[in-house]
């Protein structure tokens, strides 16, 4: 496929996003803004215990409260058999899905839903949940991933058996699955090394931290049809999951995607939608559920904490000779940590002959983990990218040069086996090397102010998946683009720009629409950095389809053959038989006489996904007295393929860096000995504010993806991977300690500094 970069007129410009005015005036409708006549308000009762058997639930007092219309427990859910069904390309276990939506015989984490209430006001619903009496029998709990792997650990799901083991075992376990990638001769590789570095790492569970809490409004109709309005990353995905959990046909549900206030992977799963549906069915009224911030932190998201061991060796020339990684990720209460992705991405920036990577997906009494921006990869990179830094340091090689020596290129085999197509990893290394930031003098430590600079890289596959799009030509010669991809960060604009490019229109002349599940073909979730790639692909094809139809219509008017008509720069013309031409505007007005309206359509499941690489550099200042780390300067570079709207690409990179800084320095789930989450609020789950960050410099490297008509690669996820490792490497340069725990919070850093000076 040929990428004709030089010809772009709209791609690469920075128009104002089409949904912008709605969002700066407060008119955009997010899920919580939906209100229907007669609507009831719901609240969910959640377990205060990390692990307990539910002996009884008495809802009578709650039901007796004036204003309460219905109470829901697991009794109201169908009992589903265990087993895995494929949903799109994602495996889904309906039984676990249902057990997470509403606890059945056991609660498995602090925050696990136990019952729900619908009442005439949210205050009454809140009073009512307090009146529900639940009798619990406390069970021992386990929250540390290594403890959970032990033989005598408390078991969360008695039916669970480890998958992926060489031999089938019938033992009760918390290890849901294990996997291994290996090639070459590890032992020989380590023997050939001049330097070997080995460390163990612990990273804390962290949350996606979107500002908008989960929400859902459901209206059940007596004909069995339900409409659900919700802020979701995927309307179709939400519909299919609801259907699975409730054992009803997907076609009986229409999901209308509301605007969404951030997701980062955490709004792909469902939590409230089926509850709202069942409460609406019980009451005959629309029901709205909104989570509190505490509910969001206790019961949704987060991503896995992990324990990781990394051992790597390199020879004098700086070539990595062997790499061994072992990682155990917290799945939360049900299987499904991103350990597989962790294994596949950990060492992917490097060309390795000898490697072994082992991964374990381990249940613990914490919320079921959800995807979080390049899920699994940031944890892994904290281990591998700091060890790479130490190898380079010990060999006296510049860390960027070390990456140049070992870096993956087109044709390099990934740890999981497949060879990379055209990628731009080394281009990102080069871009950092030449950046004003890296070229500037190393930050100088002063009295009591210790400064250092660090770099790190990251890799993410990106996703393809299914998308549909329609491009309609309006009677005035403008167009609308309809897709099924909810817009979290500017994808309406990128889709409209792609259509505008093909149609020869201005970006402003194409109006993008995000449709509900009955108004557009199936479209998988907004995730995997896939929307501008895959939905953009569908839009490109749909626009081409519209162009072909326009040519046909013009041919009809001119009594010519469609092949004789050329479409260029928003006009049709024909060269044979005289020079006739018409603008799209003129043609649009004549369509009724030329065969009728033009609606281009396309559905795709593109395979030419373009992998993404990023390399970052950061300068930090450490206060050795308090352990506080300040980010002085930050530059992120990334192979973005082709930036359709560069401002929103930069925005993805800057936002991901900010999340990575939070992950590196502050954010963590803090459980007490009873297994209760102690920081379920934004005051104590401390995310970066604008005072914590400098401007974040970005460099867009464009190595077009040959698998996409415009060269697009996904951009959203990879930039969260390097920050923790880059900051750890900078801290090392500042204070001389290699941090092996996330977050590198003031107490941890103080402790590490004290241990180092004690050793002296």
């Amino acid at each position, binding site marked *: 496929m040929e990428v004709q970069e030089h010809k772009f007129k709209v791609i690469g410009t*920075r128009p*104002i*996003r089409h*949904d*912008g*005015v709605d*969002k*700066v*005036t*407060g*008119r*955009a*409708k*997010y899920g*919580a*803004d939906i*209100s229907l006549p007669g609507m009831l308000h719901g609240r969910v009762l959640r377990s205060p215990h990390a692990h307990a058997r539910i002996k009884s639930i008495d809802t009578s007092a709650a039901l007796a409260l004036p204003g309460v219309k219905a109470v829901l427990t697991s009794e109201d859910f169908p009992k589903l058999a265990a087993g895995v069904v494929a949903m799109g390309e994602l495996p889904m276990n309906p039984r676990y899905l249902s057990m997470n939506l509403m606890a059945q015989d056991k609660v498995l984490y602090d925050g696990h839903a136990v019952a729900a209430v619908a009442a005439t006001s949210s*205050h009454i619903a809140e009073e009512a949940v307090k009146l529900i009496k639940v009798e619990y029998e406390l069970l021992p709990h386990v929250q540390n991933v290594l403890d959970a792997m032990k033989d005598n650990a408390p078991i969360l799901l008695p039916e669970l058996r480890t998958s992926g083991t060489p031999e089938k075992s019938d033992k009760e376990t918390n290890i849901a699955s294990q996997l291994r990638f290996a090639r070459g001769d590890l032992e020989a590789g380590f023997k050939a090394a001049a330097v070997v570095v080995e460390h163990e790492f612990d990273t804390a569970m962290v949350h*996606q*931290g*979107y*500002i*908008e*809490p989960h929400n859902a409004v459901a209206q059940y109709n007596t004909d069995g049809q339900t409409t659900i309005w919700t802020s979701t990353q995927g309307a179709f995905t939400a519909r299919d999951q609801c259907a699975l959990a409730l054992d009803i046909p997907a076609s009986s549900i229409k999901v209308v995607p509301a*605007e*969404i*206030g*951030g*997701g*980062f992977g955490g709004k792909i799963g469902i939590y409230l939608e089926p509850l709202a549906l069942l409460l609406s069915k019980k009451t005959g009224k629309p029901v709205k559920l*909104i989570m*509190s*911030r505490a509910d969001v932190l206790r019961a949704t998201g987060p991503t896995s904490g992990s324990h990781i061991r990394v051992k790597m060796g390199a020879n004098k020339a700086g070539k990595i000779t062997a790499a061994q990684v072992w990682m155990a990720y917290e799945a939360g209460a049900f299987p499904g940590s991103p350990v597989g992705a962790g294994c596949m991405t950990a060492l992917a920036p490097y060309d390795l002959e000898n490697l072994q990577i082992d991964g374990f997906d381990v249940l613990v009494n914490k919320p079921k983990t959800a995807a979080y921006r390049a899920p699994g990869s940031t944890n892994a990179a904290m281990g591998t990218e700091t060890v790479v830094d130490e190898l380079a340091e010990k060999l006296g090689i510049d860390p960027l040069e070390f990456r140049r020596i070992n870096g993956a290129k087109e044709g390099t085999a990934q740890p999981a086996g497949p060879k990379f197509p055209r990628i731009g990893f080394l281009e990102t290394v080069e871009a950092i090397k030449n950046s004003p930031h890296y070229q500037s003098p190393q930050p100088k430590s002063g009295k009591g102010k210790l400064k250092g600079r660090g770099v790190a890289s990251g890799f993410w596959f990106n996703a393809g998946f299914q998308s549909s799009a329609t491009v309609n030509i309006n009677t005035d010669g403008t167009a609308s683009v309809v897709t099924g991809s909810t817009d*979290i*960060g*500017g994808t309406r604009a990128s889709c409209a720009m792609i259509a505008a490019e093909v149609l020869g229109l201005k970006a402003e002349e194409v109006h993008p629409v995000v449709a509900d599940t009955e108004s557009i073909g199936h479209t998988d979730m907004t995730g995997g950095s896939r929307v501008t790639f895959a939905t953009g692909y569908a839009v490109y094809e749909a626009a081409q389809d519209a162009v072909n139809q326009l040519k046909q219509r013009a041919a009809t008017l001119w009594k010519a053959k469609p092949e004789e008509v050329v479409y260029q720069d928003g006009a049709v013309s024909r060269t044979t038989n005289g020079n006739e031409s018409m603008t799209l505007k003129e043609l649009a007005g004549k369509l009724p006489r030329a065969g009728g309206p033009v609606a281009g359509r396309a559905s795709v499941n593109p395979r030419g996904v373009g992998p993404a690489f990023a390399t970052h550099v950061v300068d930090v200042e450490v206060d050795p007295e308090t352990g506080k780390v300040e980010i002085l300067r930050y530059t992120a570079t990334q192979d973005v393929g082709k930036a359709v*709207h560069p*401002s*929103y690409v*930069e*925005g*993805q990179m*800057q*936002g*991901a*860096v*900010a*999340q990575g800084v939070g992950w590196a320095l502050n954010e963590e789930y803090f459980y007490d000995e009873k297994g209760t989450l102690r920081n379920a*609020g*934004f*005051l104590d789950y401390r*995310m970066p*504010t*604008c*005072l914590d*960050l400098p*401007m*974040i410099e970005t460099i867009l490297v464009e190595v077009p993806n040959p698998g996409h008509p415009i060269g697009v690669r996904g951009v959203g996820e990879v930039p969260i991977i390097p920050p923790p490792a880059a900051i750890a490497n900078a801290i090392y340069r500042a204070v001389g300690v290699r941090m092996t725990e996330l977050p590198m919070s003031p107490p941890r850093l103080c402790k590490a500094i004290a241990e180092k000076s004690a050793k002296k």
Partner: protein
Amino acid sequence: MANKVHVETTLNGEAVEFLCEPRQSLLEVLRDVLGFTGTKEGCLTGDCGACSVILDGRISCSCLVLGVEAQGKNIQTVEGLAQADKLHPLQQKFLEHAALQCGICTPGFLVAAKALLDRNPNPTEHEVRYGLAGNLCRCTGYDKIVRAVLDAAAVMQGR
């Protein structure tokens, strides 16, 4: 049914009256009673700034104010920023600088930035960051927000 209180207040320059329960927050009144859903809810504990309004000239978290406390006060929300057919310079600059991604934090940031510029029309980058530190954004990394506010200040100063 709890007794409702009659409250008279000024919202975006218009006299408004409403009935509310004593336990309802100003945020809840704005959104659920008056239908002004531009002001957002992110935490209800005063930690995210999504619910920011200007109350008698001061930036406030409307989730921490009771509806009944609005009696006789002057409230400005995001809905009051634009003039008929013209966006406020802050709104315009947020669009030009791509200072929003999901947009859920945007109303709060706009209102907080308005309060900041009302007080200090010529802020430095640090003063902008300090002035907006009560607002959380998880999408943008703040870079483009800070630039948009600085640029809006410049435009409003005729620079």
